[in-house]
């Protein structure tokens, strides 16, 4: 009996030793993100169907592109990263002045959204810059039309899900993610906090 147990333990040990590098080499984007995580990475990688269905068709198309692992954002990183981001881009489309006006209106209507930058980071053209930045990374391969669709989704979604009547629910969700990071990876939490990147 003891001999049998020793044999099983040895096989298990060998399995663990040889499987470890394999795991490291073939980690999913989610697993990889969690080795050096942001709070966003602890959140869901998809939107609830009910939320998605309430979005216009062109915005839904942008979402599909975003979560795609073939030629979309998720080819490089987990979709959780943009979907749970604190970024909010004011309404107004590509018109700077309209965005600035919307930002001013938001500051007046919901000043609480500007109190905690770990929950809401509201800036004009913030998603526009980020999407273009990702598109210009080597090997990204996202074409202009797809990039635009992804941007339109992110800008629309950021207003719909994170402000207005949904602001409290978003704050609870986002704070929960920050707490998860603090509990699971306190070192990384401190690092991001110090870098004002939480």
């Amino acid at each position, binding site marked *: 009996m003891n001999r049998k147990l020793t044999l099983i333990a040895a096989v298990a040990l060998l399995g663990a030793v040889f499987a470890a590098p394999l795991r490291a080499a073939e980690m999913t984007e989610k697993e990889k993100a969690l080795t050096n995580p942001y709070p966003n990475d602890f959140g869901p990688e998809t939107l609830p169907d009910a939320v998605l269905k309430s979005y216009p068709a062109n915005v839904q198309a942008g979402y599909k592109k975003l979560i795609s692992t073939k030629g979309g954002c998720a080819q490089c990183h987990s979709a959780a990263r943009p979907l749970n981001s604190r970024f909010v881009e004011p309404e107004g489309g590509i018109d700077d002045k309209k965005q600035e006006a919307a930002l001013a209106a938001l500051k007046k209507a919901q000043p609480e959204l500007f109190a905690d930058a770990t929950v809401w980071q509201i800036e004009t053209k913030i998603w526009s810059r980020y999407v*273009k930045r990702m598109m*210009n*990374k*080597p*090997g990204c391969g996202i074409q202009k039309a797809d990039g635009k669709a992804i941007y339109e989704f992110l800008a629309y979604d950021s207003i719909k899900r994170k402000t207005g009547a949904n602001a409290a629910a978003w704050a609870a969700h986002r704070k929960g993610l920050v707490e998860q990071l603090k509990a699971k990876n306190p070192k990384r939490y401190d690092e991001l906090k110090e870098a004002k990147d939480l």
Partner: protein
Amino acid sequence: MSYRKAFIVSNALVLAAFVWAFAKDFYAPWRPYQAKYYQMAADELDKQAAAEKDEKKSADLKVAAKKMRRSPMEIKQIISVDLGRFDRCVTCHVGMDEYTNTTLKNNFTEHPYKAHPKVDTALIKAHPFNKFGCTSCHSGQGLATTVEAAHGWVKHWEKPMLKGVTIQGSCVKCHDNFETLKGAEVAAQGKKLFNKHGCQGCHAINGKGGVVSVELGDIADKPFERIAGYNFKKVRIDGKELPNEHHDSHWNLQNWIRAHIVNDPAVVTPNDPFAHYNSEPIPPSGMPDFTKEIGKDEAEAIVAYLSGLTKEEIIPYRYHVTAPPAKEPQLSGAANGKRVYEKYGCQGCHGLEAKQGRRRFNAAGDGQKEYDEKMPEAEQLEQMNLGAEPTLPKLVGTYTKDELIHKIEAGVPAADAKKWSPKGPMPMVYMPAWKGKISKQELEDLATWLISIGVKDDSGF
């Protein structure tokens, strides 16, 4: 065997050993060189005596010639106590022995007979042989008295004689002012090129520079055992293998440095990207391919500079020539930003003038095919080699100035890289955090310059 017989045999053996030792010394390889030198020098004096019209001077020259012919065969050496050198080079290079050739000049054109070619220069006047010896500048094995051993072309001698312009590395050892020193122009050019191509972005020297790869402040002391696994047979200079004129003489530090510059390091050090021999894939050398940017002569200059970066040699402080750090140009705004980009070696990864990101093995890169595990390994390797660092003009326009400064300060960890082949190695090179290393004003100017070179956004959103 009786005691008597044993006594006779042992006497014979002692006698044989004595004869053998005498013969070995008598036929020592340095003797013919010394004898020939004496003969050539005496013949020269005789010629001068014959041509001399003044009888007294002619007689003196004849005496000198006679004396030269009768000079004793001996091991000659220069003892430089301060530098710990005992150099017997003048045993063969008699023309450079100040006791035999008091003027240190002669008309001979061949080694080992000719005088030091720079004997009349300020360089030699500032470095008299009796104070500096030979090997403090030339390297080699000062105590040895055979050609191969003395030049350091033997197994286990780690400082073979420096060839060509690489000797200027010796100036770097003592002269902090070598960048403005006459005679050290090639080493100075080497330092300029080292910085121009951004080597300092990854390699610090005496703590100044990047932390991505090894510190080079003591690169000249790198023991041979550390380059034992280096495949010198793969190295090509002008398409040819390294010459191996003596016992493994191609296996030396200068060739090792040279090979990194005139060859694509990923070809010479391919490692094991498909994990054929290891439990995990190991990427090739992460050093970029500089072969299209740095020519052979420029590479020699870099080799010369790096050959002088030593901590091992104990050089007394009074031999050091200190110099204040070079003054930085007083620029501002974008012009200063470009200077900052070059000062910190950003071009080591992002390319000269930020025009093209360099290779980042197995990272994502433009023009790559989609990964397919059935793809032949040679093709996969080609695709992994297309992995690249970001090309900044495309990227910088997507940042605000503050975002850009924050990015540079925070750096980018290796784990953030997207691998082209999920089974391949993790892309090695990463961007270190520059916070605290680049001053606030420099960062501000760097961001200003980077934004100024950004390509116009035509994305339509």
